[in-house]
């Protein structure tokens, strides 16, 4: 029993954190808010060069053949940086979904370009009404009646659906499923799509941990400096206790996310329960951290010019994406209370 990451995994986290600290400051996130949905990605080429974009691709396609345990801390860092680029859909979901589901011809055509970061691939699973970053994708993986379709942009009509998180470029995708777009069917497709959903929920949870920690860091710094009534507001018990509870929630959520990474990497049969634990706790911890962060900041946190809202809005939208906390609790209840596997 050793519930910790390897030195290699921690080193990769460190390197990614350094890169994002340098290349993805808040100004970059704000620039993404103002950019059109098809603007080329800014940090992406460097993440690709580092191997991160293709890390989940098999090595024969130029990837690193890594799994969710290797991804977990990387995703936490992208959350911490509020990275406005589709690592979640592309690296955490699409690449493994293609590698495990599609035929050799298809993999040959797409995985090398995806691993190298040349072709962005995004995903629209059933239940998600909009697709993130469809406007800059070379390929959109879409679920339809338990089938997996891979659709090129020329076969889709996109309607922008602006999110309150301006860095998140959502679109409604209209398309017609045809045999040429169908890449997987039957029980295999169904299982692969279930796994893709769980990967999405896990990856979102991992990012939420980073988002929540950044919200806490910003707030702790602020309340140490801000004085009222002649003392730092961080010295008031009312502020301390709110922040302490938010911290406890994050500390409890984080091991759940790591446990979900393990369950996915090891293909454990009760994977869904572990993923739902991760998403439920991470969603609540991040939404709670957002509420606490704003309340402890007071008015300044409520201004658009101050950076806090960039992370608050990311916390809100990701808390709702891939199933919110209540949905995941209901899924666990079905498994545990009704005794179904």
């Amino acid at each position, binding site marked *: 029993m050793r519930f910790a990451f390897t030195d290699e995994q921690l080193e990769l986290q460190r390197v990614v954190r350094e890169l994002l600290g340098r290349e993805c400051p808040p100004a970059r996130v704000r620039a993404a808010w103002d950019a059109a949905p098809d603007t080329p990605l800014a940090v992406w080429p460097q993440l690709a060069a580092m191997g991160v974009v293709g890390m989940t691709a098999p090595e024969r396609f130029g990837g690193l053949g890594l799994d969710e345990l290797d991804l977990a801390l990387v995703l936490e860092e992208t959350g911490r940086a509020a990275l406005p680029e589709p690592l979640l859909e592309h690296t955490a979901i699409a690449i493994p979904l293609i590698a495990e589901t599609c035929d050799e011809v298809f993999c040959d055509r797409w995985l090398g370009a995806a691993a190298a970061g040349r072709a962005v691939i995004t995903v629209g699973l059933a239940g998600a009404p909009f697709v993130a970053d469809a406007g800059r994708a070379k390929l959109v993986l879409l679920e339809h009646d338990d089938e997996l379709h891979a659709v090129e942009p020329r076969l889709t009509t996109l309607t922008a659906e602006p999110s309150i998180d301006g860095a998140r470029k959502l679109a409604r995708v209209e398309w017609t499923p045809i045999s040429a777009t169908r890449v997987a069917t039957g029980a295999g497709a169904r299982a692969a799509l279930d796994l893709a959903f769980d990967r999405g929920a896990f990856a979102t949870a991992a990012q939420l941990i980073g988002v929540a920690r950044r919200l806490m860091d910003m707030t702790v710094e602020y309340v140490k400096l801000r004085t009222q009534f002649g003392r730092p507001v961080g010295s008031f018990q*009312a502020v301390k206790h709110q922040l302490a509870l938010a911290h406890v929630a994050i500390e409890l959520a984080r091991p759940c996310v790591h446990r979900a990474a393990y369950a996915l990497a090891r293909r454990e049969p009760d994977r869904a329960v572990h993923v739902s634990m991760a998403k439920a706790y991470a969603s609540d911890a991040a939404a709670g951290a957002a509420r606490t962060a704003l309340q402890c900041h007071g008015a300044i946190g*409520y201004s658009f010019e101050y950076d806090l809202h960039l992370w608050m809005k990311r916390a809100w939208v990701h808390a709702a994406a891939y199933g919110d906390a209540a949905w995941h609790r209901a899924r666990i209840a079905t498994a545990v209370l009704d005794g179904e596997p």
Partner: protein
Amino acid sequence: MELAFSAAEEAFRAEARAWLRANVPRDLPPSGSERGFAAHVVWEQQLHAAGWSVVAWPRAFGGRDASIVEWLIFEEEYYLAGAPPRVTQNGIFLLAPALFEYGTDEQRARILPPMAAAEVLWAQGWSEPGAGSDLAAISSTATRTDGGWLLRGQKTWSTRASYCHAMHGLFRTDPSAPRHKGLTYFLVPLDGPGIRVNGFRRLDGDLDFAEIFFDDAFVSDRDVLGPVDQGWKVAMATTGSERGLTLRSPGRFLAAAERLVDLYRRTVSFDSAAARPRSGRTGVADAYDRGHRDAVIRAWMDARAYQLLTLQTVTRLVAGQTLGAESSVSKLAWSELDLRLHQAALDLLGPMAELGPDAPSAVDGGAWQKGFQFALAGPIYAGTNEIQKNVVAERLLGLPKD
């Protein structure tokens, strides 16, 4: 105890309802832009022309001498008709009560009618970069000069000040006095020399805040409200009102709760397949919906309970009692319920909740998300909820000061 309204009150309600249902504009733009604000001013001028702008004021100032109960009835009908929050509120709900209590006859006659008519728009100028929860830390100053005062310093978080003609707020007139002393309440035109108003955006992107810089801006003696160096007392008349009954009638929450119930009915019937994450089992969706159900009914109940609390308070006011620290109980109640109510709506909307007002698929034009972000300000402004809890503990329960 008699909870029925009198025939006169019911007639008042019927008249208000009829007028509002016929006249409340549909699809007003948000007020946080030059264009949007102008449209809201037009609406409030129309409201005034019909005599509904300040129903509880004397007729001489543009009101209709309505009782406090009638005022509550009006507020209920106003929001049930779908009318928007008042852009004149920092004048009619904050400054006016202080004018009624501390103003001179000349000030009331000069200031109240154009305020009621939405011809002169008033912003509030209290907070400063260094004075938020700790309001008594105000450092902007007013120095004596011929026939008036010269203002220096900075105010901030002044809602709608970019679009307003005047500001009311506190300045330090006696720097040698203790913190709460030596402050004076001024009524300041915003178009004079030495004043710069710099708008900035709030959480939802609307340009709704401003900071205001004073560089020897002149304000005349006739625009001092209440006694010099007694501004704190004047301000407390305003906060008693801001935090309490006048600004936060239950009408807005009752209307929002009804809309939430309507949203619940729409979402449980409409495309639950499209707007919910995948599930192989019906049981999941079912249990999930039951959770929504409880959150929705809690919000509905909270709005009703807050209404009852308010009606009891109003009964006491009618009987001649005054509103004291109890207003902090109200503030804690409405600010928390408003947030839970909007959170329940967002939870119902699931993945649709994140759409902004410009998204073609946004449910109800994105109003729930906007309402949620607005509600988040509730526990912060008008005295943070931490301050309010201190007030409840110290002044209502008698616990010792920190």
